[in-house]
């Protein structure tokens, strides 16, 4: 079961030199020791409202499993999905 956050709330993400997340702050809580389960890119709607996102499926030390993405057009990080 997953919860889709269709409004894509902003999250604060700390990245390494390669741009991969190493720490994220969500609802006032900092989640460290981030492990990356998967990563992929989505580029869509280039002909009208371009979407370019770098997705990361993360698991943190305290057991949070979620999907976040970097909006490459705006340079902001967003939460998309939390897994139970």
């Amino acid at each position, binding site marked *: 079961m997953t919860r*889709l956050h269709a409004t894509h709330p902003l999250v604060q993400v700390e990245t390494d030199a390669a741009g991969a997340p190493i720490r994220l702050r969500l609802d006032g809580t900092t989640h460290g020791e981030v492990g990356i389960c998967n990563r992929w890119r*989505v580029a*869509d709607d280039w002909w009208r409202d371009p979407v370019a996102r770098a997705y990361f499926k993360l698991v943190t030390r305290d057991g949070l499993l979620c999907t976040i993405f970097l909006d490459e057009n705006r340079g902001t990080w967003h939460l998309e999905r939390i897994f139970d």
Partner: protein
Amino acid sequence: MRVLALVWPTLRGEAAAPDAAALFEALLDRLDDLSPRIEALEVGVALVDVTGLEPMHGSERQVAARAVTLADVYPVRAGIGDNRWLAALAARLVRARSGDTTARAACLILPPGEGRSTLAELPIGLLPAEPAVRDRFSLFGLTSMGQLAGLPRSAVAAQFGAAGERLQALARGEDPRPLVPRRRPERLATTVRFEPPAEGTTEITLALRRAATSLTDPLRGRHLAPGRATLTLHREAAPPLTVTLALPEPTTEPDWIARLLLARLEAEVRSRTAAAADDEPRITALGLALDRLTNPAARQLPAFEPQAGRWEELRWSLERIGARFGTGRLWQAVADRPTAMLPERQSRLVEIGTETAGGQDE
């Protein structure tokens, strides 16, 4: 057995009024006063067992006249015969025999035991035969019912099979099919009066639950459950307010019946007060009626359309959840583009009961 057939031409066929079925039911209810054995053959055609009614109502013609009087709302044709076939045929022939095409009511009585002799001269085309069988009758030179009736039964069976045998029996005025009396639709009703008149919803709610319990308890013992509930509120200096609830599934749960009726009632009152913008009058009495009684255990879902039954169950559950938690709190996920690249474009939420989309927008 003596059977009276009644045919209301204006209630039959495609030209009939849209509420012909309801009008026909009302006519049958009136005829219940005449005989306890009435079969509704189809909308606009009824068969009444009039055997042994003479001591009470007089001769057969008087019985027929009484039936016609009871059901004389629309033009009616009546026929009496020894069985359902002869009675129906008599009702069919009455118009031609009487010669008066403008009469509102007409009746033809075939005397007892004279069915075969009466039919002998009638054309064979009056038999309810398939066109192919009818063509074969004409190939054999059979033009009247008497000709078919006079043939040896074995010969008819050899040429026309079981259907031919049945048609020959009809041509001889014989019809072993019994009358299948209809079951009069049962309706349970109760009324609660308020002294002094009720103002708040609490009193009405309690009274409605008590009324629902008093009606459903005896039904449960008979393994019956209502399929429709009607609530009528009699108001001070205002016309009665009636809400009718067709239950998607027969139920004997008085609490749910009361809750659903109250939810409907609240919606009705809201719409009325929004339009009239005046104070709600006090309630002097509450009437609850339950009908469409069926055996809930006998309900059978379609074998090859599982979705139909499941949606019915789902609608019922949604109705109950909506009544309990209020409207605007139930949403349905609609998968518009399941293959879309972005998850938020794959589906959206739609409020149940409305056409407008809500929640996730593209």
